[in-house]
């Protein structure tokens, strides 16, 4: 670059790029979400090839590369397997909105699951410092449900009786 350019105005274009989408649930995720919406039931899909539970259910079990074939109700209680306390707020790429921090996301192994199939969701507690690996939590359903993952509002920490 020549010297004259060091003071040069450098053009920038700022914009939000957006494309509307119609996402399919497919029959598997669709059934899972319909059960949340209509019956407040959390349904796992069990794969008989290896006994693995899929949660949320997906078309294919990655380990056996076969379809799950048995629907089993699990939860709403469960045990927190891992969690993240998020202090850094990032935009939701579906809406562009930014969430208040801190919040906690957790991987919950629901009661009734054989093996490990943690469901990923928000975890709430009156005091988030009490959220620990192994803590007991319970799914709290939204009053108005629309057949999306938000039909579970969050998992609530169950305070242990002293």
């Amino acid at each position, binding site marked *: 670059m020549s010297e004259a350019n060091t003071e040069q105005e450098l053009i920038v274009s700022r914009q939000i790029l957006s494309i509307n989408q119609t996402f*399919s649930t497919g029959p598997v995720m669709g059934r899972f979400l319909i059960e949340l919406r209509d019956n407040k039931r959390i349904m796992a899909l069990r794969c008989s090839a290896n006994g693995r539970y899929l949660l949320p259910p997906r078309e294919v079990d990655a380990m056996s590369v076969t379809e799950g074939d048995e629907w089993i109700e699990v939860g709403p209680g469960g045990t927190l397997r891992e969690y993240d306390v998020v202090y850094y707020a990032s935009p939701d790429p579906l809406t562009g909105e930014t969430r208040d921090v801190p919040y906690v996301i957790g991987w919950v192994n629901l009661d009734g699951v054989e093996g490990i199939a943690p469901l990923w969701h928000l975890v709430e507690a009156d005091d988030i410092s009490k959220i620990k690996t192994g803590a007991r939590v319970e799914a709290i359903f939204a009053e108005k449900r629309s057949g999306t993952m938000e039909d579970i509002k969050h998992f609530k920490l169950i305070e242990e009786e002293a």
Partner: protein
Amino acid sequence: MGKRVAICAVAQTKYESNKWQQRMQGLVWEVVKDVKEQVGLGFGPREIESSVTCSDDLFDARTISDNAITDVVGAHFQGEEKVAADGSQAVYYAVSQILSGHHDVVLLAGHCKESQGASRNQVTHLAFDPFFTRPIGLDYLAAAGLQARAYMAASGVTDEQLADVVVRSRQWAAKNPLANAQDAVTREDVMASPMVADPIREGHVYPVSDGAIAMILASEERAQELCDNPVWITGLGNCYDTFYLGERELEGNFSLSKAAERAYKMAGVTDPKAELDVVEIADQYAYQQAQVAEGLGLCGAGEGGAWLEAGGPDAQNVNRSGGMLAGNPLLMGGLARVAECVLQLQGEAGDRQVAGAKRAVAQGSTGPAGQLQTVVVLEN
């Protein structure tokens, strides 16, 4: 190529304008399951050793779109690599995985759901640079409009001829159970369809489509074990053109000619007019059938109009599948061409079978007005 690579199995979904009942995972699983069963293999050493996928983050509205299908393509604790271009490019790459000696059996799985986003134009618009070409509203359809005008003038292709290309596509599509656009149309119907990007009419544009394709590719030794009728990939070539439309010879075939030359040299094709039994062209727009025919050497440069007039497509068995005009999603255009060539060479093409087909060529393109061209020669 010293060693050889074969395609041992092919599966395609039905192509439809809105497969809203399935997530992309469901579409891909349908075809992966099919080819797995055809060759009787699972995933792992001495089975399917690697997966090459083909998809696009913008069409899927998903960063790392292949991450969403690792379970479906057997990539749990196994390798998977995604080609983000027309599926013919994924064939190109999958062949190199095998010829390199790194893998013997490779799953190729591609998908594209054009119906998911508000419009495919909104996706392809974003292929243009932010300061010089996006602001004026370019997308792949607009780019094709410019190319169509340049090409039709240079090669004497008429509106009537383009209508006939579409009529013929529908006639063959009616014999292809997987084709999307199977309804018969007349020359008058097409010529009466409104202009969308002059001189491209609505009838000249491939329909919005969803679909997925899977294939099993294998080294020569493994191919013989896996199937009775392997189809050999004997030639491959691809080539890019430059980006700005004003700097390209839009009427010509700069990149396609080079891609074809490379593929023909590898396959030992010296006279494409005479030595190809089946030709599959990814004609996203009707004019491209003639333009690509020139690029593939089915007729001379500038002779596309005369070639159409003389019944070149019938004489050279072009697009018996119905072609892309019958409806494949953008990324699957070239891969569906390869799939049709395999079916033809296996004698599995049903009512549209070319009797005794021995050698076929498939073409695919990526980018605005065919900036990247890919040519695959296949033999049985």
